[in-house]
């Protein structure tokens, strides 16, 4: 949780500050074996991921030798299992000369951050990552140049880059159909919000897990893979069942009058689901379902059950159908 707070605090701030804070973050220190890495046995784990995932990108401007040298510069962090305190012990730090990213010096941990951030491969990497969070398309080169300039001239501020991305016309081009697949957390949070539901059960945790995204448990240090990687027959079935679980007892048998027209039934379901975007295909499928599902079901017991059932299904399709999976 502390790591979450750190990320939230600096997310719109300075990337150098964020990187330094993350290096000292307890979860990071443990997970990537920074705590305990000493001059006698430097651990490469953090150095490798810091270059590969967080600042430069895989095989982008650094070598295995850079990783080993950076690992030396990052030695000296400690963790006391009894007191649960993190620290830095200069005696366990390798004070010798290192060669990192073409520079030579008696570098320490903070220098590794600076060397990576001042490397010419860093700014384009980070700006491309930020753009990719908002759009599945390649960032237009013209915009990327502006992003890189804004980022470097502001001294690694994140907010100006986001401002440029969010106000650029390229982001809003071609938007009549959603073009990204919702991550499970976005899907579930959106569904709860659209239907005005509160979280009243921890069942969401295992349901999200089976959709492929257990909160705070990324599959590995690079996080979750996005878009099409969310899709499998298993995860989609779970998305369907998650929506179904929201519909329990929502409409009782006998609650829907027989005079309600197919159009009214669809309209009411759209209101329930928070007026989501729907494709033409969904519109016409719902219209014909709404008409045919109750056709000829005029007996009293049939009206009592099938007319509410129609609206249960309409709601389900709006919450869980293909359209609901994209944004």
């Amino acid at each position, binding site marked *: 949780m502390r790591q979450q707070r750190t990320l939230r605090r600096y997310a719109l701030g300075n990337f150098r500050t964020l990187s330094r804070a993350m290096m000292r973050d307890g979860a990071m220190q443990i997970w990537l074996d920074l705590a305990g890495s000493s001059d006698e046995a430097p651990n490469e784990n953090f150095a490798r991921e810091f270059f590969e995932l967080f600042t430069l990108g895989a095989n982008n401007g650094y070598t295995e030798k850079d990783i080993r040298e950076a690992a030396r510069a990052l030695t000296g962090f400690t963790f006391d299992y009894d007191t649960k305190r993190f620290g830095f012990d200069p005696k366990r730090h390798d004070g010798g000369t290192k060669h990192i990213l073409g520079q030579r010096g008696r570098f320490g941990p903070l220098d590794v951050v600076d060397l990576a951030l001042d490397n010419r491969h860093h700014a384009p990497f980070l700006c491309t990552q930020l753009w990719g969070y908002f759009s599945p398309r390649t960032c237009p080169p013209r915009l990327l140049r502006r992003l890189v300039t804004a980022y470097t001239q502001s001294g690694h501020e994140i907010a100006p880059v986001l401002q440029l991305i969010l106000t650029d016309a390229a982001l809003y081009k071609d938007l009549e159909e*959603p073009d990204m697949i919702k991550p499970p957390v976005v899907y579930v949070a959106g569904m709860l919000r659209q239907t005005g539901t509160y979280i009243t059960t921890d069942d969401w945790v295992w349901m999200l897990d089976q959709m492929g995204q257990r909160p705070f448990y990324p599959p590995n240090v690079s996080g979750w893979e996005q878009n099409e990687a969310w899709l499998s027959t*298993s995860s*989609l079935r779970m998305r369907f069942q998650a929506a179904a679980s929201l519909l329990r007892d929502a409409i009782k048998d006998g609650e829907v009058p027989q005079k309600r027209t197919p159009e009214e039934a669809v309209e009411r379901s759209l209101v329930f689901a928070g007026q989501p975007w729907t494709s033409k295909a969904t519109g016409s499928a719902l219209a014909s379902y709404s008409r045919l599902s109750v056709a000829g079901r005029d007996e009293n017991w049939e009206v009592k059950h099938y007319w509410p059932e129609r609206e249960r299904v309409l709601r389900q399709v709006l919450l869980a159908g293909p359209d609901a999976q994209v944004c």
Partner: protein
Amino acid sequence: MPRGCSDWHGARAVLRRDAGRLVPIPKRALDGLAAFERQGGLSRRDLLAGGVGLLVAANGIPGLSTQGVLEAAAAQAAGAPDATILVSLYLDGGNDGLNTLVPLADPRYAQLRSRIGIDPATALPLVDTTSFGWHPSLAGLRELYDAGKVAVLPSVDYSHPDQSHFNSGGYWRSGIVGPAPDRTGWLGRTLDAIGTHDNPLQGIHVGWGQDPSLNGRRAPVATVSSPSDFGFYIPDVWEEKAFLPTYRRLSRARAKHPALAAVRSMYGNTIETHDRLAPLAKEDKPAPPPLPYPDSNLGKSLGNLGRMLGAGFGTRVAVVSSGGFDTHDAQAQAHADLLQDLGDSLRAWQADLDARGLSERVLTMVWSEFGRRPEDNDSAGTDHGAGGLLLLVGNRANGGIRSEFPGLAQLDPDDNLVTTTDFRSVYATLLEQWLGVEAARVLPRAPGGRLPLLRAA
């Protein structure tokens, strides 16, 4: 392949008996073959290898198009009751091959593994060599090895191996070393070549997220954790047929953007998977396997896969995995537990396949993204290495040590085990000699050599 021949004979016998009802595929049907291949269908070679016999029932389908004939043939080939099946069992995190198959005869082993080395006195002997011993937890695997059902490749990787989990694992899954042109995996492309366009269960990942090695361009695949738990329910909606037709209709609609198109197509696969799994979903109490599986994720996955293979869904490839092999510290106990689970699971798996009459048709490839560093570390663990251990398990596996162990006297520039076998030559061998598809159709840079991994039935 002899199988194709015998099928052809059988088919001709039927033809003679039932001359009025069965005719060979008309010659002109083959004219459309090239076009069909371009669309991703079977090649002529695959058709013959698959033992289709090139026959169709003529009455009842008088107006069937050339393509229809070939698709029917393709479906028949993929679903043929004697089709071979490859199971990929992934040890997630980089298994320590040197403590799995211990090089007892290598004098450097005890020096390099001074902290967590396996005591030669406790290692389990191999029936045919004293050079190696199995980890003491591997009694289950040893039994299979002694029965000649395990082909062992001690150092499989690729040249200049990458020590990143993401990169190496990605290369193994895509079958391409270096940046891949798309998201497809080698098993997905295999199904593109030999599979059908409508049966997701031809490729099964037992789990939750689709395994990237199964990503294909066209061929649908299924991800199923348990076949007993793949239903669709809406509270107080009495029957699936109230809503599934609407979902089927939506899954077939066209979409402008790839995201919605992908969702719709996967929805279609999901419902198709559900429909095909129906016979298993109805089973109240599945028959217990002859040997109980360990109560672990791997044991459960193999148990569930056994049920699906036993039901004859036309499966050709499947993926299961076992996690926790990234043993950077305190390795001894953790690794012993993992290997115990692996050996016991594999023994139960082979017994299950035997009981289902599948053991001649199923081959299981056990692999990991890399081996671990020969020298153990200060945390009583091992760091990422190269040259991993690969096992092929099954009645048709060519039991024994089947490629060279490089020894520990000379290591690579990163102090790792020297690689003696490229994983792509393992793939190429399995593609051609087990799954019946030309390696070059699946692996863009297929290596030339083939390995002695299989033996005749």
